[in-house]
């Protein structure tokens, strides 16, 4: 194991967590569909409970994504979180609101009333997806910051990473390319949510409306996603000279990365096809209920490929437009060799974790949610 291998390995794990997170954002998407797919109180309750047993996975994946980034690429954590303050704070508030809403919404004495908690879920569903998507897009479009390690000996201001844009992160929302990905993630989460409802709820009218939502949300998703991908792949990218680590702009850098890493290209294409297969088969065959699995795997593969394109093959994954040479690469921002090595040993437990998550998911979702279960009062939100 050499240092470069470990840095790439941890970029892969970060990418995988990011990819899982995008898939699990179906919970957020579902929260924006509560009153579109659910027309009666009972129907909404069924939807809420379908999501309510999964929301913690999404939340935990977000926490772990942040934690893993901190652990493996601490310079990213200090630069991005400590600079794009308002974007991360906004994401944070969206998720705090969510975490209490499921537990509190139908409890007696909740003061604010069920509708307020549903509004919180809506805010999380919309804000969480759009903001996270926008933040991730800056991996390709860049931000305005300076990194200078010599600052530490400056006694009046020892801060190493400094943001230079006065909007402290909110400027990312002014870039159309970023927002395209943000809104694409929003629509995608609604597609996956609809597929998830189709998979785990037994109710004719919910099924019908969910199927409609798959189509309604898939069209804008596809348009925005294609737009973002084409713009990104063929626009300017941020390349690193492997000899002297100098960072420079290069046209079609991300497309070149795909060509130069055929395995990632294959992953990307397979991901897109699997996503399309899950969606199209669900739309064509009314008794096909497993679309969420195909689309889910597809999303994970596609997003994984995008993250890999952003960080591998001599690419700066967190570029700075204020000063190109301040851009972060997986080599200049990672933890030390020893720390990454220890972390890598620990990461060998991951397959067991995935195994028990899968096992428990099946145990809980073994039987589809139906009206009888909700009416029997078996812990419902």
């Amino acid at each position, binding site marked *: 194991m050499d240092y470069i291998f470990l840095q790439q390995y941890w970029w892969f794990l970060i990418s995988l967590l990011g990819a899982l997170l995008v898939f699990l954002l179906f919970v957020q998407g579902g929260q924006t569909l509560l009153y579109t797919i659910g027309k009666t109180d009972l129907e909404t309750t069924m939807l809420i409970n379908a999501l309510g047993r999964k929301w913690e*996975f999404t939340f935990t994946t977000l926490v772990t994504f942040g934690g893993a980034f*901190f652990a493996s690429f*601490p310079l990213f*954590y200090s630069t991005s979180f400590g600079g794009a303050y308002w974007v991360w704070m906004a994401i944070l508030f969206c998720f705090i609101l969510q975490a*209490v809403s499921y537990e509190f919404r139908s*409890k007696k004495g909740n003061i604010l009333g069920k509708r307020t908690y549903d509004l919180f879920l809506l805010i999380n569903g919309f804000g969480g997806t759009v903001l996270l998507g926008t933040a991730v897009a800056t991996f390709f479009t860049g931000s305005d910051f300076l990194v200078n390690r010599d600052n530490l000996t400056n006694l009046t201001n020892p801060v190493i990473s400094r943001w230079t844009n006065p909007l402290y992160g909110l400027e990312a929302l002014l870039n159309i390319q970023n927002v395209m990905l943000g809104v694409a993630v929003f629509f995608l989460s609604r597609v996956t949510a609809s597929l998830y409802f189709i998979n785990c709820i037994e109710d004719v009218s919910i099924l019908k409306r969910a199927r409609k939502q798959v189509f309604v949300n898939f069209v804008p998703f596809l348009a925005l996603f294609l737009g973002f991908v084409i713009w990104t792949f063929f626009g300017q990218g941020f390349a690193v000279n492997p000899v002297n680590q100098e960072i420079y702009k290069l046209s079609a850098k991300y497309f070149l990365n795909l060509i130069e890493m055929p395995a990632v290209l294959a992953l990307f294409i397979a991901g897109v096809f699997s996503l399309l297969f899950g969606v199209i088969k669900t739309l064509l065959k009314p008794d096909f209920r497993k679309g969420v699995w195909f689309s889910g795997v597809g999303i994970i593969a596609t997003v994984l490929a995008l993250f890999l394109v952003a960080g591998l093959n001599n690419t700066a994954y967190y570029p700075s437009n204020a000063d190109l040479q301040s851009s972060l690469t997986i080599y200049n921002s990672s933890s030390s060799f020893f720390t990454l090595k*220890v972390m890598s040993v620990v990461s060998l437990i991951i397959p067991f*974790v995935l195994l028990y998550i899968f096992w428990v998911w099946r145990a*809980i979702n073994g039987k589809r949610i139906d009206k009888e279960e909700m009416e029997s009062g078996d812990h419902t939100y």
Partner: protein
Amino acid sequence: MEVLDYSLVDWSRAQFALTAIYHWLFVPLTLGLGMIISIMETVYYKTGKTEWKRMTQFWMTLFGINFAIGIATGIILEFQFGTNWSNFSWFVGDIFGAPLAIEGILAFFMEATFIAVMFFGWNKVSKGFHLASTWLTVLGATLSAVWILVANAWMQFPDGMTFNPITVRNEMTDFWSVLLSPVAINKFLHTVTSSWIIGAAFVVGVSSWFILKKRELELARVSIQIAVVIGFTGTVLAIFTGDGSARQVAQRQPMKLAAMEGLYEGKCGQGLVAFGLLNLSKKTYDDQIDPFLFRVEIPYALSYLSFHDFKAFVPGITDLMNGGYAGITARGKQEITLSVEEKMYRGQKALQALADFKLAKKANNEFLATVNRHILEENYNYFGYGFIKDKKEVIPNVTLTFYAFRIMVLLGLFFLFYFVLLWYMNQKDKLKNQKWLLWLSVLAIPLAYICSESGWIVAEVGRQPWVIQDIMPTFAAVSNIEVGSVKTTFLLFAILFAVLLIVEVSIMIKAIKKGPENVH
């Protein structure tokens, strides 16, 4: 070059203190109540009696209300390391990486996965699977405390690392001494066992209310019986680990100990202040004003508790400022202690050596780089003192530390006797006639929280101005953002927290008033 504003440091600290204290309202109940629920469900599993299931489910409902908000506030702390303490995140990110990875992989998902079974699984999985899930949720929650406590312990006693002047950060060289540092182990045990006190006080308090209302008498009696055992065990272990903690502080953070005791002029055979009233007109360590209006001391006790030696010298704040006495360093070496001014001088030397090292590297002057690297290494133990502008900055807030420490210890002792008394009264079935004791039990719930939060105030206020002991002061740790932004988010957090706390308590009271449901 813009100058970092001191009010930015204060507001960033205020925000972190607010979120940490708030988060700590929910975590200990999760840990403590979780233990109690797991034991109840284990009995249900063994006996199959539905009253045990009913009891488990009732407490589990309350557990769930509290759990959600604990999760919601935990993520804030994690984010804030980056958003508000970005320099710190880079400076120590390499140390926190490994324990954080362990926690993320081992604990977070364990908790999140099995809590779903705990709440939705009663009719979906077998009894054994459900019981295992309950235990795994509590285990996951407890393990979730590991990283943050290892990190905190390392900040109090940095060990197992070297400073790399090229990357300008501390890099881990010895994983085990980070993870298993005596401070970390002690802190973990002290924190977890003291959380059992809160869980137990909560169960006892709520059960006592039922007895006062003459409802659910049997459920209340059995619940109290289990809770007092957990509570007593937790208190004894917390006292034991607290003693260990005091000794570690004496050796590694003598300034904190001096602040805890309001001790200015140290001596051999130092007594411990059992009760005392601080003289608030004392403003600085060298103003010759007696720090106490009144005090009752236990002779020789502080020397003994600190060094297991009745005659040992315990330095006071003045001694620590002036140095010159024979003391033991954090790493157990005997040496003549430096004054704060000397430490500041050495810190400045370390910072200058780092700057010169960088310049030498840029000029490709390897010789000069080596020389400066050597100077830096020699003085690195005082690196943080280089940022200190006025030597009095290194004295923490004595009033807050002194009183918080006394509140924690007195309440800890109170709980020791309280759990024994309750166990006895409950055992003899005399509790229902002792209204005063039942009301005291209701009152003891907030007391348990005050006790626990006071402990954190001692630990965190007492080590100011350091974010990492002697290596980095809070000033050098903050993010370079606008004060206005931090003030705004502080206000938003304060409003949100207030609303959520009111809602949480309201839901909790409603659920308690409703009482347990019948099990079919």
